[in-house]
């Protein structure tokens, strides 16, 4: 009967998209796990290890991530036009990944990791499977959340010029975000939190500046900061 035939067909389709989702989730779990290890190794920066030392493990993991996103792209390639149907299953993992990459990028270049650069780092060149803009932006907000802690620990380690640089960077990023008309959603909430990061970095900068440490710091203390003063 047509009713049965219809449901049989549904069954195939649902099983199909179910197993697809399973595959996606498995890759997403691998991404989560790689990002977690990466995050954990980046945390050593707070203990003033030198950047090259800290980056060694992290950089290796980028290779793993590229591979995993490649897998995702491949899977989605089987379902043209359904990127946004399954997108929710790897969103939050991707946001974390972006935040880590952007933090590393800042440490190396003192500039913001651009969207195109992030895509490139993850090997996402194809138009079909890119980095969603909102995910990228949320990732940047997450990175911002880590900066106050970084600045505090750098100053404690004697790197007195760090607050100034981070403040400049964060002020610029914050100003750039303000240009956007954000909907009243998750991203907006995350961005609203960025102003607390900014404020905290300003306070640290103030603490350093008012004691005249900025001058001293630059000349006398280079400890624990491999490539950066």
């Amino acid at each position, binding site marked *: 009967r047509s009713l049965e035939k219809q449901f049989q067909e549904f069954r195939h389709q649902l099983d199909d998209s179910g197993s697809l989702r399973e595959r996606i989730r498995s890759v997403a779990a691998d991404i989560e796990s790689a990002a977690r290890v990466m995050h954990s190794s980046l945390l050593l920066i707070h*203990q003033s290890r030198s950047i090259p030392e800290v980056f060694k493990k992290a950089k290796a993991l980028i290779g793993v991530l590229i591979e995993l996103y490649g897998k995702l792209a491949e899977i989605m390639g089987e379902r043209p036009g359904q990127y946004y149907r399954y997108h929710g299953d790897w969103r939050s993992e991707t946001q974390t990944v972006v935040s880590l990459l952007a933090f590393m990028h800042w440490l190396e270049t003192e500039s913001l990791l651009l969207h195109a650069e992030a895509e490139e780092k993850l090997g996402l060149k194809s138009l079909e499977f890119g980095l969603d803009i909102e995910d990228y932006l949320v990732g940047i907000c997450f990175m911002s959340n880590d900066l106050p802690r970084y600045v505090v620990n750098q*100053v404690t380690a004697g790197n007195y010029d760090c607050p100034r640089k981070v403040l400049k960077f964060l002020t610029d990023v914050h100003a750039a975000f303000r240009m956007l008309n954000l909907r009243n959603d998750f991203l907006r909430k995350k961005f609203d939190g960025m102003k607390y990061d900014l404020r905290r970095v300003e306070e640290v900068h103030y603490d350093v500046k008012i004691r005249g440490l900025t001058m001293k710091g630059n000349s006398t203390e280079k400890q624990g900061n491999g490539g950066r003063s």
Partner: protein
Amino acid sequence: DSDPNPMRNAFSKYASYLNDLVLFLSVLVNEKRERVVKASRDVTMNSKKVIFQVHRISKNNKEEVLEKAEKDLAAVVDQYISRLVKELQGTDFWKLRRAYSPGVQEYVEAATLCNFCKTGALLNLDQINASLRPLSDPSVEPLQINVLDYLLGLADLTGELMRLAIGRISDGELEFAQKICSFVREIHRELMLIAPKMDDASDMKTKMDVMLQSVMKIENACFSVHVRGSEYIPFLGSEDTNFSLLGVPEIE
């Protein structure tokens, strides 16, 4: 209701079978569960007392305070953990885990805290379990704290270490505070990798958030001591050599 039908008979036979099994469950296990819960509660309360004792530490009474704390900790094992072990002996540890887990976690918290203050290192699970082994009747399987309870206890330990660090900074013991800071950072990093693998991952996730807060509280305290101290570093050491940074004793 004395009808002699077979099903009902079967069931009353079944019910007498329950006297062996279900009443074993409801009496033995339920009441055992009750008793285990009570024993666990006592372990918790007395471990908390040990932790409280450790927080009495100050610059000049360290040995004295820790000695007392260790004695109290030993008493927790002798009096309360041993009771717990006795209750648990011969039953399935995992089945009753929920009943005793809170006490065990708190004991881990107390034992690792004492040990850190004394040695500056982490007391391992193996060490703890080795110390518990003598409590059990050798004929039955001894109580061994499982990894999960140990890790949950460690997660709470970081909160106590934070309180300790803040206190130590007030007392001028900067180095001790910094040592705590590194230690807590390390535990946080290690647990971060382990947290999602645990049986009770969502509990652990909230604990991780609290832990990060603790780490940052210590870091912020170290930061403010540092910038304050840095301000006059050139003048320090010359004029006022015995002026320890932020130490209380100089008053008067």
